[in-house]
Each structure stands twice: as C-alpha cells, then as structure tokens.
C-alpha cells in the first residue's frame, strides 16, 4: 500500500502588517492579481508535488455558499425548530442549527419585525422589498419560513411580499428563479444590474436590504445613497466601516475592490437623504469575524480598525426592536 502522510499547512500566514495596509484605490491599479482555487501538495523540499484545480470564479463559489443556505433553511427540522421555539434573536443564537446564528438570519429577523410593523401599523397589505445583491434569493426563503411560523400559516412571503432581487450575476439570478418557481412572477422580480447602477424611483420600496454588497459596488457611496433614496421606511444593512477619518479601499479574496465607509461618509449620506436616522444593532470588529482572510495584503493591526455594522436606516418614529441610534 503506497499511501502518503499528509500534514496541513498555511502557504501564506496572516502577518501583523500587510502590503496594502495604507489602502488602495480602484483607479491606481497597483498590482495585477491571479487567483487560483486548488488543492496544493508540497514535498519535504518545499516543491510542488501536485495541484488539483477547482472552479474558483465568484459566481460558482457564491452559488455554493448561497444555495447551501437555501438547502439549510428548507430543512424540515429547522422549520420545525423555528415553529416550536419562536422567532427571536436568542432562539436563533442558541439553536441547534448553526446557520441561524450567522449574520444573514440575524438581519432577516430585523426585516421580519419591520414587515410585521408595516402591516400592523401602516396598513400595508403587501410589503415591497429591495434585496440588493440578492444572489439566489435566500432571504426570501427565511422570511417565508418566519412568516408562516409566526402566523400559523396564515401569512406567507408569497402573499405578503413584493420582492425585487437585484444582482449583477445572470447565473445567480437564473438559479434564484429556478429555486423560487412557485412564487408569483409579478411579486418575485429579479433585476440584473451592477450594485450602484440601477434605476429605481424615490421611495419605490417599503423596505430594502443589503448585506455587505454596497461595500463592493463600483461606486459605494452613490450606491448607498440610491438605496436609501429608493427606500420609504427602512433599510437593513450589513455595512463594513473603518475607524479612520477617510474611507478605505481594500481588495478582497476575489480581487474585487471593497470600500470601508468612514463615519463622515455616513453622516454625509444621511444629510443627503434628508429624512431618517441610522441605528446600530450590532458591531463586529474585523479581527473577531469568522473569516480573517477576506482581504488581500491587510495585516492584523489594520484589521483591528475595520469592522461591520448591522445598521438600520429608518424613517419610522420607532423601531420594533432594540437598536442604538448613531449620533454623528
């Protein structure tokens, strides 16, 4: 039997400082990057013994991550758990289903509460929702599960939501359509567009959602301004920010520029919107995030100055959950 002994290793350990700690800008074109997704095997001398490549384009890898979420959400055991344990953040946090404790479901809880609020207090029969960077429409699934569970099946996303998913990937939108073939087409709309280049009118949507997508659009500040302008009542966001006075450009693992908003950026955006406030429900410093390797050439010290907010922009007088207003 000729079997190898394998030992895992890290071919590029994270260091205290990184090549791009001082930031880069999309237009400087500092360096050309090649990205490979593969298995790598190295012998005792450090020479490559074997490589096995797997598809590594963002579309394929996003398909893996987001279809996997839909599969987990549609697990009958998870649905049963939510029905029995209730729709609360503490229930999600302590659930036997790890996915419920992750970022997206926590944000969906906020959306769910906002939907109920709009139906109950604003008399809205069908809530319009912009899902900015919708990938395969996985938020629709969890919202549907929560609506059914919270109403003894009297309410569903099919009859309570007018969904507008926007994504730049034709492949992911095609999968979104296939996965939601039962949804009424007039209330399950998919739009292919870059995340800062869309045509929605002022206050077209009751609610909107963007989970980190604003940060890696071509024009992040304009993208966020346009989303807030298109939102009537509330926008739920995961937004990456920097503690520095100015915004910061990094490059992510897919070679896509990612912008970290500064507080002064948010202040200006709010002023331009003219009405509404930002509230924070959570802040995670980047060094405590689940994936420390998201950015190329960023060292640990720089990562400590970066983080992500769970933010809600709202024009409502009160929010249906606890949140701290961001005072600029």
């Amino acid at each position, binding site marked *: 039997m000729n079997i*190898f002994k*394998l030992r895992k290793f890290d071919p*590029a350990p994270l260091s205290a400082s990184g090549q791009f700690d001082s930031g880069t800008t999309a237009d400087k074109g500092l360096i050309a990057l090649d990205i490979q*997704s593969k298995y790598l095997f190295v012998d005792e001398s450090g020479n490559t013994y074997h490589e096995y490549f797997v*598809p590594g384009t963002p579309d394929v890898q996003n398909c*893996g991550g987001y279809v996997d979420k*839909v*599969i987990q959400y549609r697990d009958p055991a998870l649905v049963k758990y939510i029905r029995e344990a209730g729709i609360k953040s503490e229930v999600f946090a302590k659930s036997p289903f790890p996915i419920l404790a992750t970022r997206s479901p926590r944000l969906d809880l906020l959306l769910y509460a906002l939907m109920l609020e709009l139906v109950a207090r604003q008399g809205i029969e069908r809530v319009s929702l912009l899902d900015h960077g919708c990938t395969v429409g996985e938020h629709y699934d969890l919202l549907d599960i929560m609506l059914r569970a919270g109403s003894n099946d009297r309410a569903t996303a099919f009859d309570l939501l007018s969904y507008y998913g926007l994504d730049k990937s034709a492949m992911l939108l095609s999968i979104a359509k*296939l996965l939601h073939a039962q949804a009424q087409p007039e209330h399950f709309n998919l739009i292919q567009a870059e995340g800062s280049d869309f045509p929605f009118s002022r206050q077209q949507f009751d609610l909107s959602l963007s989970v980190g997508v604003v940060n890696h659009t071509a024009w992040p500040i304009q993208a966020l301004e346009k989303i807030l302008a298109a939102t009537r009542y509330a926008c739920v966001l995961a937004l990456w920010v920097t503690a520095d006075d100015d915004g910061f450009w990094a490059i992510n693992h897919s070679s896509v520029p990612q912008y970290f908003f500064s507080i002064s950026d948010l202040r200006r955006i709010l002023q331009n919107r003219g009405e509404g406030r930002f509230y924070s429900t959570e802040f995670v410093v980047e060094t405590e995030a689940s994936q420390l390797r998201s950015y190329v050439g960023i060292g640990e010290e720089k990562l400590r100055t970066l983080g992500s907010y769970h933010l809600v922009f709202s024009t409502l007088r009160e929010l249906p959950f606890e949140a701290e207003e961001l005072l600029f």
Partner: protein
Amino acid sequence: MNEDRGLAPRELKWCVGKFVYARGASKPLHFMELKNFIIEDATDYSHLFYLRGLRSRHSGRGPIDEELKRWMEGTAVKPLGEVVSHVLASVNSPRRSIVEYYPGVGLTVEYVKLIFQEHQAPSEKASGAIVSYEGRGPANLKNQFLVLQADQDIDVQYSSDLRPALSGTDVVTVINLNQSIRYDVDSQISLESFLESSGGPKVLALRVTSSDENVWHMTVKGRPIMLPALGEVFDVCKQFGSHWNFRFIERFDAGFFLPMSGAPTGLLLAYDARRDWPLKGYNKG
C-alpha cells in the same frame, strides 16, 4: 512538479483554498482556506442549475462561465446520464423509475431529464421519462438531495439504506461509486452482492485501475482508497449476467488522485439492460 513519480514522497504538506498571486509570482500573496460547500457543493450546484436552466429555458443560452464549462466537461455526468438514458429507453413500461446509489445532488437524473426533453415533443414534460427517482446515500445528504430534486412531476425519495434492494424490471438501478469517491464517503456497497440480488437493469460508474491487480490510491481529500482492477470488474459483472457492456475512460479526472507510479486510473461505465441493447462506445469487455 515532482519529476520522479516512482519515488513518491511519503510525507506531503497540503492545503485547499483560494490562492492570490501577484501576477507572475510563484509565492502566494494571500491564501484563504475554502470549505467543502465552496469546493464540491458549489460545482455540483452550479452544474445542476446549469442543466436545469437548459431544460426550463430560464438560462443556459447566455454566456457561461468558461471555468465551470471546462469543469463540467471533465465530470462523469454527461457520459453517465447518456448511458442511463439509453438503458431507461430499453425499459418497456410506462412506470420507469431510477434508483441511484450515491446520487450526490442528483446530476445523473438532471441530465437524463435534459436528454429526454431534447428528444420529445414540446408539449410533453421533461420528467416523462420516469415516474420516480430514489436516491440512496449517506443520511447527512438527504436534505440537500430532497431540496434540490423537489419535483412536482416525479415522486422523489431518499434513503440511507445502502443494502441491495430487489428491483423490478422497470427500475434502472444506478450504482454511482464515482460519486461516493468525490463526496469522500466510504462506499458500503459490495458489487458482488448487488449484482447478485438486483434483478432489473443496472448501470455502474466506478473508478478503477488499469493495472492487473487492485491498487491503493489516495484522493486529494486524503482518503486512501483501493481501486479495483479493470479486469476484475469485468469478471464480476459477467459472472452475474451475459448482457454487460463496458466503456473505460482512461485517465479520467486523474488529478483527483495523488500521482503515483504504476498503471493509470480511469472511469469505468458499464450497463446491463437485461437484453442485447448496444450503445456506441461500449463493448463486451
């Protein structure tokens, strides 16, 4: 690359993930480990929805990711789907079914549906080829299979019972041991006991060695696996039926195994339609 594959090193360092290089550099600037759902599942899901998109005409006409296209062409899905369709066509019954051991996400039947759709009138449903599809594999893959295969027109089931089942003549049994290797699960299937107890038409897909003897190999996932000798599989199949047909694809996805000296590996596809039912590219072994 190691020049002397005959003296394969016993100890190797390994990793799997996304490597970012400054253009032209050999040392990575950045590394991010990838989880399994980004590696195996991502490619299978992408493949599944690409095929389904072709069938439903929601997509598949636009530009396709070239990297994904190359990957799909290197998998066993197309050749396996073709031979399963061929065997299915030999079944003279309106209640044709497929039972697939180690179905993964169900790519075989997705391809079968596509083939049938391409050869039928537009008014007929693509699922008209079969009335039921049962996957049999590890219990932890049940939900994935059922969610992805949910189909209003076909009875879809999944069982973790991997024992051979008595099957009728209208059930095509697919033993997809190629998929069990890719999904990094121990196959609990004894080919002999399967062939002995299964009465209906059958299709096999398995990795073999072209050596005269069974040979241990190691997958890139670090799992040692004994690949059966091609000749031995021929003999076992013929022992349980006289209508077997074989196709050997030498060096199929050879990189999935760590390089070793010796005879090349490959994919063996075989079928028994319980009668003479020839297919181009297949022979009697």
